[in-house]
């Protein structure tokens, strides 16, 4: 997804202004001229300056660079869906990991993504089981990371 520089410039200016407004609420140190608000304010001032420069540059080049370039894949529904599925899988993991558990969640995610990327279903299923068990072994047995067990805890496994 490519944007004209002006779009980025505007986003940066709005973001930086919000940061400055929020930083003004920080308490100041007693007897000190500079407090915790100094660096965020300085950084945001820099971002606003850059944002203005980007807007100017973007407006100059607007004849040649459209505000949003429909990337080759924007027209490609399959790539769009894949991106959606990938981000969705990560979100699903964040939301469901504790209740469902790593292995039960990882297997369908890998099957779904591998299948979407063009791997045959059978291969995707084998891949998902091997990967989930390998990661489980590496992280839980070797590195002693308590990956969420979720549903599997009822089976004592």
């Amino acid at each position: 997804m490519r944007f004209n520089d002006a779009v980025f410039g505007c986003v940066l200016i709005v973001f930086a202004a919000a940061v400055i407004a929020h930083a003004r609420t920080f308490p100041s140190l007693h007897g000190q001229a500079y407090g915790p608000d100094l660096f965020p304010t300085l950084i945001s001032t820099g971002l606003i300056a850059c944002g203005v420069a980007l807007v100017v540059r973007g407006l100059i080049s607007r004849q040649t660079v459209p505000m949003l370039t429909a990337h080759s894949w924007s027209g490609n529904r399959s790539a769009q869906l894949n991106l959606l599925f990938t981000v969705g899988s990560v979100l699903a993991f964040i939301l469901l990991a504790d209740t469902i558990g790593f292995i039960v969640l990882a297997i369908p995610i890998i099957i779904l993504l591998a299948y979407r990327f063009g791997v045959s279903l059978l291969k995707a299923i084998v891949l998902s089981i091997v990967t989930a068990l390998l990661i489980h072994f590496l992280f839980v047995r070797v590195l002693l990371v308590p990956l969420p067990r979720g549903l599997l805890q009822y089976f004592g496994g």
Partner: protein
Amino acid sequence: MEALLQTIGLAFTLVFQPYVLGVMLMAAIFGLFVGSIPGLTATMATALLIPFTFFMEPVPAIAVIVTTVAMAIFAGDIPGALLRIPGTPASAAYCDEAHALTLKGKAELALGTSLVCAVIGGVMGSLVLALTAPMLAEFAIKFSSYEYFWLACLGLSCAVTISTGSNLKGFVSLLIGLFISTIGIDITAGHPRFTFGSVEMMGGVSFIPAMIGMFAISEVIRYIASPNSITAPPQQGIKHVFRGIGATLSQYKLNVARGGFIGAIIGILPGAGADIAAWIAYAVSKKFSRQKEKFGTGHVEGLVDAGTANNAGLSGAWVPALVFGIPGDSITAIVIGVLYMKGMNPGPTVFLNQPELIYAVFIVFFVANLALLPLGFLAIRLSRLVLKVPRNILMPVILMFCIVGSFAINNTVFGISIMLVMGLLAYLMEENGFPVAPTILGIVLGPMLEDNFMSSMIKSDGEISGFFSRPIAAVLGILVVVVWVIPLLRFLYSATRSGKPTAP
């Protein structure tokens, strides 16, 4: 002298243990594999490894990263030569040249030269590191918060001016990194900044998930957005990799020395890593070559320069990282983050208190680069197999490793959220020409910049002049101002030039 020998002896015992050598071998295989596959970079390899190094002692942790990266940077040459797709960005500079050699039927020469030059470059860079770092550290031990403030400024300024692409976008990228570093409890006043009541944000943006997001997730997204299939490598016998290497090297021995030197120096500059070293070495090689016209048509000379330079640059980047805690490239930025988490803050005091650790790092560099010779040879022989591994099988696996790695640091899913956000951010930035390296440097150097500024201000009672009150600080401060002014002058110069109609 005797103390030094004793330290080196101790360092040897730290490195030459079955465990350390074993993990180095595994890291080497991993690095060669990741580097050989187009679309998976050396930085991504490092990012995927940090969750594992998190659970290791400092020496094996560093050994794993050094070995992986040295191998991956060389392995990036393999698909570059065979398929004209650089395996890592550091091979991009001479990828066309190497592929042109392959088209002439000289794939053996291209890969052999790359390999031997990578080894020589790596060893040269390691020598530069081992010789300069201890000297600089002796000097740096006298530095106070003023000097460190200026050093951090210098590092950040270099990151912007040297980075690829426009300086303006580099600066934006840096500011984004600096802003991210301010999230969490502020160190001087203890006030939570931009946490919006979230307890998990109080500790700031966790470094490892952020790195995994920026370097691994962004690559996964890029693959999904443009899934180009890889063409099959040409059927060409690659058996006698070292045939004719001796003659090539003796013909271009000056190029080897020059490439190694350029690589190490550029590596030392903060923000510029192996990829920029390779571009510059290739350009220098072409400029001073007696056979300029042959460049680009499958001429081995540029390959010698640039292939030496990128591996030398890797070691060079560790000089400022170990001595000042200022990363020389994005890989050392990750390393510094890892060391901080282990409670081993890089800086001159480590040279003083735990010199055996530093010498162990040097030894690891030599071992890794020498091991590159046989292992790289093996990788070239196996390349046809590795290049056949389909990326649509790798990507879901990589994604799952990223998720679990981000989870494993604090054992919370919050890390995964950070990973996802940073991954999307890095993808959007790179797509639109914003370099990512300055953001990483901003995240790593932000706290150093702010802490040293605040404590200097408290020391000097709010007087800015304090920053120029000590001789070294004054020199560094002036240097920073010069680095800032030069691009500005250049900009004004070109603006006035282009404004006037050019005289005939």
